[in-house]
């Protein structure tokens, strides 16, 4: 599991730069989001005469700024939804992730690995929530700017190859979104194990995209993502969101 998370972390390093603010002491950014730093580890190896509290160094996850105003995705996603989604929901995942990391670091410093492991579900949920939303905001852009349309270049070609046409891809992604039973996400991903072939996958709740898959484009199918505007008519939200998809971001991730 640690490997999965660090895989997706590496792939999303660009995104996460935005959302990490590091303690001055922290050794590297990449070591700081999901696990205690090497400093804490060597302190543990040295074990005996260490004062654990003084040896923690870790990055703190922080809420990334949006690259557009809350109202910028109107009329497809309302300003109120964007504000709550970003400033409340995403913030809660950031807080939950930091709290899980603190618990793990404290448990690790005491050598209490049972306690550390017991936090795994919270780490997955809040860490996934932070990661998913960070990727999601970058996948969106105002329809008056980069939002909407369809991708060209290598990404456009790959979508046609994999799904028949852009329209067919949208249809398949909307069907995947509509088929989620409960809360979750649908993703266009690149499958590293299949020579970079595109794949359409869904994830339950806040499970992050990990392992062989590189997340390119995610759409949030939690009710909080659309309910204030679309109520139970989620198919209308899935139709509308294509007007504000930032294909430049998707292409950049695809080509990375």
């Amino acid at each position, binding site marked *: 599991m640690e490997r999965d998370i660090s895989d997706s972390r590496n792939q999303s390093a660009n995104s996460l730069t935005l959302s990490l603010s590091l303690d001055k002491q922290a050794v590297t950014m990449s070591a700081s989001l999901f696990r205690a730093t090497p400093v804490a580890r060597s302190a543990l190896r040295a074990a005996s005469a260490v004062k654990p509290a003084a040896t923690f160094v870790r990055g703190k996850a922080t809420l990334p700024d949006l690259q557009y105003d809350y109202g910028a995705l109107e009329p497809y996603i309302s300003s109120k939804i964007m504000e709550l989604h970003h400033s409340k929901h995403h913030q809660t995942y950031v807080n939950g992730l930091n709290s899980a990391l603190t618990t793990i670091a404290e448990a690790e410093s005491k050598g209490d690995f049972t306690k550390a492991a017991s936090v795994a579900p919270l780490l997955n949920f809040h860490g996934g929530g932070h990661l998913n939303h960070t990727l999601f905001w970058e996948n969106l852009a105002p329809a008056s700017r980069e939002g909407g349309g369809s991708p060209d270049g290598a990404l456009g070609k790959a979508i046609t190859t994999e799904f028949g046409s852009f329209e067919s891809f949208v249809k398949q992604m909307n069907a995947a979104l509509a088929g989620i039973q409960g809360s979750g996400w649908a993703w266009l991903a690149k499958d590293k194990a299949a020579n970079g072939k595109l794949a359409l996958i869904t994830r339950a709740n806040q499970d992050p995209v990990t392992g062989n898959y590189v997340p390119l484009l995610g759409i949030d199918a939690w*009710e909080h993502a659309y*309910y204030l505007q679309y109520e139970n008519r989620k198919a209308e939200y899935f139709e509308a969101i294509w007007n504000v998809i930032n294909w430049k971001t998707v292409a950049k991730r695809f080509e990375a």
Partner: protein
Amino acid sequence: MVNLGSIWQNLLASQAPLQSMTGNATTMAGLATYSLPQLPYAYNALEPYISAQIMELHHSKHHQTYVTNLNNALKVHVAAIASSDIPAQIAQQPAIKFNGGGHINHSLFWKNLAPAETPETNYSKAAPSLAAEIEKTWGSFDEFKKAFSAALLGIQGSGWGWLVKESTAEKGRLRIITTKDQDPVVGGEVPVFGVDMWEHAYYLQYLNGKAAYVENIWKVINWKTAEERFQGSREDAFADLKALL
């Protein structure tokens, strides 16, 4: 003729497919359809704790969708049984479980709610034997409420919290459980009452403040229904669902 037994067989089939595929094709041949139950109160009757708008959408749209999709899935499932197409039968099981669960859960939920400050929502008067058992198990109502609320707030994603009476325990020991998405309580337990923690159950009124929804739901728990279910059997708790055919 389909009765509640057959929907349970469908639901259980996801755990034991072969067992349910032997011998029930005839009982399922004349498929009956499930229908949306009437609410025992008006859409605005749970105000100010649950808004009329939430209740109307939740009942007339969300619950209706589960009923519609359950009937569709059962129809496909019956056809697959008739043609001995086992892969096609299995392919319907997630839809039957999800939509059948949604129908069961919401049907139980509407009946375990009641307008605030009515005899039904008076905990100690309406549920004397359940209250005694709750206090025996958790020490006090407040401790029970704390434990149940924490379970509700701990759900990651969509799901439900339930107070259940365990079937095997002598004198009906109580337990708090949570179920994900629309998974119904399918063990032998008797569901005493449930609380819907899907965002559609509270979002229009409480937005991201789900702790306030959880705090307020206690004002509209129908303790009379809870007491009856606690004293009764699993069959009794599900009797209404049979009548909805």
